[in-house]
């Protein structure tokens, strides 16, 4: 028995090792390295400081610089504001689409579902290029139509561009999230509906009282992924930046870190920002899971 156990344990680690080695190399090591880099800085020498440079220990000064940088803090606030709006909108839309499709006839369902899901196959970069054209006065047929109606919305200005970005992200991922919800919906036993209908419940009541509560796990999953996706916001603002007056180099924490590293050559500050971003993502999504976990436990 012990021999068998030893054998299976060895096999288990054998199965795990290739993944774990690469996981360590691409997840744990970079995080460790980022932490290490974030604790250092460049020291300059020579006339005018152009003579050369070497790395010295910096303590937590990069973190205090990042957290004392108004632009970086503004980017964090911006992304949080964005998340507060984007996450519920995305989830509501996904659930609404899934519920709507659940009541339409089978042939139409396939067409609609495919249509909604299609944008998921469009890379964020390309989606941003497309929507960029649709946001720009002069090239956008939508704005041209609005213009005929006397409307001249500025979709790329400082006040609106964040929501223009939110629209791109919604367009890309709403269909995908809808599919997750749909999958859950189809796992609900049919007898539940029969029972509800016998009790005289309307379609709307069934959706609200029977389907919605059972969709919780799918909604939790999509919410967590939407939160993580929100914090990653990068490609969309980067692509829209040249056509918008509202997007700064520090528009999102991710852009800010990228900019520190590659435009300003300050890899140490960039590392501190990356670490802060990772910690924030971890805390937020883990906090959310704990929150729903506890509440779910209490209600059961």
């Amino acid at each position, binding site marked *: 028995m012990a021999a068998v156990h030893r054998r*299976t344990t060895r096999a*288990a680690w054998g199965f*795990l090792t*290739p*993944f774990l080695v*690469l*996981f360590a190399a691409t*997840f744990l090591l*970079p*995080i460790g*390295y*980022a932490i290490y880099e974030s604790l250092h800085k460049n020291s300059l020498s020579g006339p005018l400081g152009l003579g050369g440079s070497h790395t010295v220990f910096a303590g937590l000064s990069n973190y205090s610089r990042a957290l004392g940088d108004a632009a970086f803090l503004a980017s964090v606030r911006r992304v949080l504001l964005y998340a507060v709006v984007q996450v519920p909108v995305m989830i509501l839309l996904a659930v609404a689409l899934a519920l*709507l*499709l659940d*009541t*339409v006839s*089978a042939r*139409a369902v396939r067409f609609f579902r495919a*249509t*909604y*899901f299609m944008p998921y*196959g*469009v*890379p*964020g970069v*390309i*989606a941003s*290029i*497309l*929507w960029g054209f*649709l946001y720009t006065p002069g*090239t*956008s*047929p939508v704005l*041209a139509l609005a213009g005929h109606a006397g409307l001249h919305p500025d979709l790329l200005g400082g006040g609106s561009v964040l929501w223009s970005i939110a629209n791109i992200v919604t*367009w890309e991922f709403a269909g995908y999230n809808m599919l*997750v919800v*749909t*999958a*859950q919906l*189809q*796992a609900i036993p049919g007898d539940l509906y029969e029972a*509800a*209908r016998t009790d005289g419940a*309307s*379609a709307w009541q*069934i959706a609200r009282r029977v389907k919605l509560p*059972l969709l919780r*796990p*799918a909604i*939790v*999953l*999509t919410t967590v992924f939407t939160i993580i996706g929100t914090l*990653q916001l*990068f*490609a969309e603002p980067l692509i829209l930046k040249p056509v918008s007056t509202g997007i700064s180099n520090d528009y999102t924490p991710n852009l800010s870190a990228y900019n520190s590293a*590659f435009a300003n050559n300050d890899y140490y500050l960039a*590392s501190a920002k990356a670490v802060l*971003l*990772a910690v924030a993502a971890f805390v937020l999504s883990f906090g959310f899971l704990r929150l729903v976990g506890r509440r779910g436990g209490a209600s059961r």
Partner: protein
Amino acid sequence: MSAPSLARPRSKDGGPVRQPRSRRRRGDDSTPASRVTVVGLCAVAAVYFLLPVYWLIVASTKSTAQLFGSSGLWLSRPQWFANMRHVFSYDHGIYLRWVVNSLVYAGAGAAVATLLSAMAGYALAKYHFRGREAVFNVVLGGVLIPGTALALPLYLLAAKVSLVNSYWAVLIPSVVSPFGVYLCRIYAEASVPDELIESARIDGAGEARIFRTVALRIMTPALVTVFLFQFVGIWNNYFLPLVMLSNPKLYPITLGLTSWQSFQDRQPELYQLVVGGAFVSVLPLMAAMVVLQRFWRTGLTQGSVKG
């Protein structure tokens, strides 16, 4: 509402099986009026999702001048074939190379990622050993860390071992999918029966062989999902190749198109190429999404159940 209940709908060949009732309309004692409302809402949503695609199709037929000079909703002096030829011939046909690169990154990356995830997920589901939950929790933590936060330190590390600006710089990080491991574990737990493994052991099969012949086959639906998930993830990824690559010959399509975009102020004809290139890159993947969408459902349910 438990994982095993979901393991039920599985055909012998391991492919996804629709539950019969999912074909039926459910919860509907609806009036014609409410049905019209529902279809109407669905149609409005469809217009929203299709509009940019429609614009892209129309725009891909236009010259740069027409792109700016004509309405985006209608054809104007279409020259689709000339545009496509231009896309594929510009700069010695670099675009085709980008397409191939994207396929290599996404295809090879997703294939290896699927295999690694299957092995790890199976081990975490079906073996009892010390440290199992610790390992799983660390991997779960990996799901929660944004990939873009890792890209920067990954770049610095890759620089130290001289891997930047190579296929490996993009491929190696792409083969690690904590979410894939998570999905595979949930699925294996629910669908690979312990008795089957035990009887295979009694028949004298080794662990590797059991995995290959028994587990992999049963886990196929989940593996398809992991593969697709990872494929799309790599295909759509921008940040990692952006920081890792500087040689245009190694670019995936996303990076290639943005590099064209950055030249277009000096070379206006690139406007057309960006639009045409976007068109070419988007259509096949969107078609694949439509064809393959049913595969997403089975595996994703597994993930959401535990979520």
